[in-house]
């Protein structure tokens, strides 16, 4: 298995979260190869450094996502998957949703 392919991750941003990322909704990301598997905590840092165009505090807070953003891994709440400690698999689909409040 090629290391590059191993860390292909598709990130999707919804509920207005895409506005923080230049309005782009889908990001196909190939993470740099490293000896340990990537986990969500590292992915958040990587996103903050590589994808976030403006005001990172609206997306991350400390080493977690900010309140009001729900994180999904393969269509499941990341709370079910180990949250920050979840180890990413090849072709994982990560979605960040900003909660909506309008009616």
């Amino acid at each position: 298995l090629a290391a590059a392919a191993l860390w292909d991750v598709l990130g999707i941003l919804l509920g207005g979260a895409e506005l923080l990322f230049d309005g782009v909704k889908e990001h196909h990301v190939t993470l740099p190869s490293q000896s340990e598997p990537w986990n969500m905590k590292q992915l958040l840092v990587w996103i903050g450094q590589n994808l976030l165009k403006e005001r990172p505090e609206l997306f991350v807070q400390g080493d977690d996502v900010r309140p009001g953003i729900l994180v999904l891994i393969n269509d499941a709440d990341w709370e079910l998957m180990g949250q920050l400690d979840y180890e990413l698999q090849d072709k994982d689909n990560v979605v960040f949703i900003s909660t909506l409040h309008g009616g």
Partner: protein
Amino acid sequence: TPLESKPLSNEDIMRYSRQLLLPELGVRGQKNLSQSSVLVVGCGGLGCPLAQYLAAAGIGRLGLLDYDEVELSNLHRQVLHREESQGQAKALSAATAVNRLNSTVECIPYNLQLSSENALQLIQQYDIVADCSDNVPTRYLVNDACVISRKPLVSASALRMEGQLTVYNYRGGPCYRCLYPVPPPAETVTNCSDGGVLGVVPGIMGCLQALEVIKIASGQGSSCGQQLVMFDALDTRFRSIRLRPRQPECAVCGEKPSVTQLVDYEALCGSAATDKCRRLNL
């Protein structure tokens, strides 16, 4: 007063004939509907289609709550109101429209703002609560009141070209605070006045919300108790998300709740309980 159990009248049988045919509903489900009461919090873009389809389906009692008045800028999505209702209280305008469609539904308009003072007393009179509100403090208030009153909360929201739907506090599933223990920073919250919304998006979400209320009220049960349905209108795509279960450490529904009575939700969220002006200066 509780809704009494009575047999379907001949007129009921005629009116509901097309849904009485459904094995999933039938006479039993229809009678369950007619004995159920639903409180609709907000008669706007979500509340209008929701109230319309709940009344059409034959829900027994419908509480319609809104503090606001009908404005021209509402009519692109708040389809129960009409041009001539401008200036009228939304709760009243909605109740009038609903009664024209089905006069056998008992409609109770509440022309007031839901608050920590009145929420428990109101919600305890209903079997199911539908959150059709438009701001963060009201969403926390409705959630806490539903947990304290042990009522299922069918919650939808819409903004721009997107919508979300979940049933909270239902059959061991999570409450709103289990998912969102800390309110979002006020500067990250966009409402429909600021961000806009395509009118038919709350239309779709309000109809989906009505479906879940009908399934719960009729006894069929909802499948959204631990599921979030997300809708993206741009490409007409839906996603169904598996959610976490009820969280033992939740401040309101957990094992040792710290919130056992309603609090000041505007202070908690740092924003006003309206979608009209966004930030509260504390």
